[in-house]
């Protein structure tokens, strides 16, 4: 079962077996502009829901990527370190940032589903 959720800070999280894949949304990458650099956490690091887990930089902005849920970093996507443009090209797919081993599945409950995130975006833009 793949569960896809979103945060109001424009991160997405997709459950993939017992790991959760995290990235930034298409809206986030278009707001940032060309991504020039990403700073990914170390494998094994514990991240906390709502706290900074990674940094993504474009020419005109630098943004924190917050962990949508708490967990341990199991894998990071070296491909975007080598080629940050992947984040712009395929933010929901090849542009993923990290995979977390979750500790508390209930933390997913207050995240937005796809429809709610779309509604949130429409509100944001007004």
């Amino acid at each position: 079962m793949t569960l896809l959720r979103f945060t109001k800070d424009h991160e997405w999280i997709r459950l993939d077996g017992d790991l959760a894949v995290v990235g930034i949304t298409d809206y986030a990458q278009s707001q940032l502009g060309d991504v020039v650099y990403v700073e990914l956490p170390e494998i094994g690091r514990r991240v906390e829901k709502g706290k900074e887990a990674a940094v993504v930089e474009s020419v005109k902005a630098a943004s924190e990527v917050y962990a949508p849920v708490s967990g341990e970093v199991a894998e990071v996507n070296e491909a975007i370190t080598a080629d940050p443009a992947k984040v712009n090209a395929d933010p929901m797919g090849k542009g993923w940032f990290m995979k977390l081993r979750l500790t508390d599945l209930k933390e997913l409950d207050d995240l937005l589903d796809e429809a709610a995130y779309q509604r949130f975006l429409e509100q944001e833009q007004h």
Partner: protein
Amino acid sequence: MNDVSLTGPIASVTGNRGLQIEEKLIFEQDSPGRCGVDLPEPAPFLSRLGGLARQGVIGLPGLSEPQVVRHFTRLSQKNYAIDSGLYPLGSCTMKHNPRLNEKLARQPGIADIHPLQPVSTVPGALELMDTLAHWLKILTGMPAIALSPAAGAHGELCGMMAIRAALELRGERRSRVLVPESAHGTNPATAAACGYMVDPIPANDSGRVDRAALEAKLGPDVAALMLTNPNTCGLFEGEIIEIAAAVHAAGAFFYCDGANFNAIVGRVRPADLGIDCMHLNLHKTFSTPHGGGGPGCGAVALAASLGRHAPLPWIVHGPDGLELLEQGTGAAELSLGRLKGFHGQMGMFVRALAYMMSHGSDGLRQVADDAVLNANYLRAGLEGELSLPFGGHCMHEVLFDDGFLKDTGVTTLDFAKALIDEGYHPMTMYFPLIVHGAMLIEPTETESKASLDEFIAVVKRLAAAARSGDVRRFRSAPVLTPRRRLDETRAARKPILRWRAELECREAAE
């Protein structure tokens, strides 16, 4: 005015365009052993370098004087400057840099004196610094001036450190600093660096800080409010005295970012507004040259409660004349310490003092008057074509937003780049952040009416062109400059920050 044809330039053999000449890096013009300075060879002597003599080649190129002069002359010809034309950068105060100031700064009695020669041999230097401080005290109404900060941001750091020192002396732990959302990025950066949590205050519909929101955020844990006045929208904060009173009632300090002092110099004293601490940019209001990015000077005016924490060194009036206090003892025992090596930016002190003496108290007041008049003249001239987010007149700078570009496909950035082709440096863009696609224009008082009329005419023509759908002109701009738009993404993804012999640093597109 003629329309410029936007078909590309004629290709020359060299790639040069008349007076605009391509110039390689000095490293690409090396001839080993060649030298542009003739120096004698010392007589043989016994080295005392202790076995640390440098081995191997450093890698510096050798050029003659004619080549070096030509190199840097050609480079200079690729720069826009105040000397070339109007530089409408909001909050930067790009006024004329008087040449008298350059002459005086080069007098041997100013340029060829060392900060550590015996103080008894430099009474004139102390006198100059003291005189400058005196002028700044009278203009600000504040009793103390810290001269040593090297730039505006450095002055902000000085001010916030003085505030923290004062609070520590009181034995109070306050953790928050209030900063308007319209503030320049250095304000929250400085507050955060000093260990404070930054609490933003929104603006109201008239572009001023929301006083109710501000007062609601005041409390015993607020250390300071950092405000810019006139603010970054170019508007005077009319409720500033009430705001100051509220800040003081809460036991906090009132820091003012003095970047916009040009609007009120000689007309208003910051002390009369209730300000405790204000940095001045000598390279803005007081005409010291921007020099392509520096050096500057961010002298700080301080109220008595903060003046005793001023950074070293202090110049004080002693029984036998001026004294230089270099230690944090005696009268200076509460000083926050040293923020910079030696005694401060003397080269900027003399230029600023010469500027102030040239204008005098009457001339300085006229500076503010003309600066505000010029900005309002631009506002009136452009308000039909461009869109104003806030009504009423402005102070020394006028803020437009990108409403007038709606549905044209032209962004603020594109508009600014088209202005470059017309022979102007763009205005400040996308700042302040509280307005969409901001364009902040500050002409300063050293622009003539004719210069302003020309600028108004050009901007109106461009606005009309944008609305008529001539998108290509804007998206491709600039085309008439030494370089067209540069790939900043590539520069950041694969940084090349120096020349290397091994690398292909030559002209090559991927």
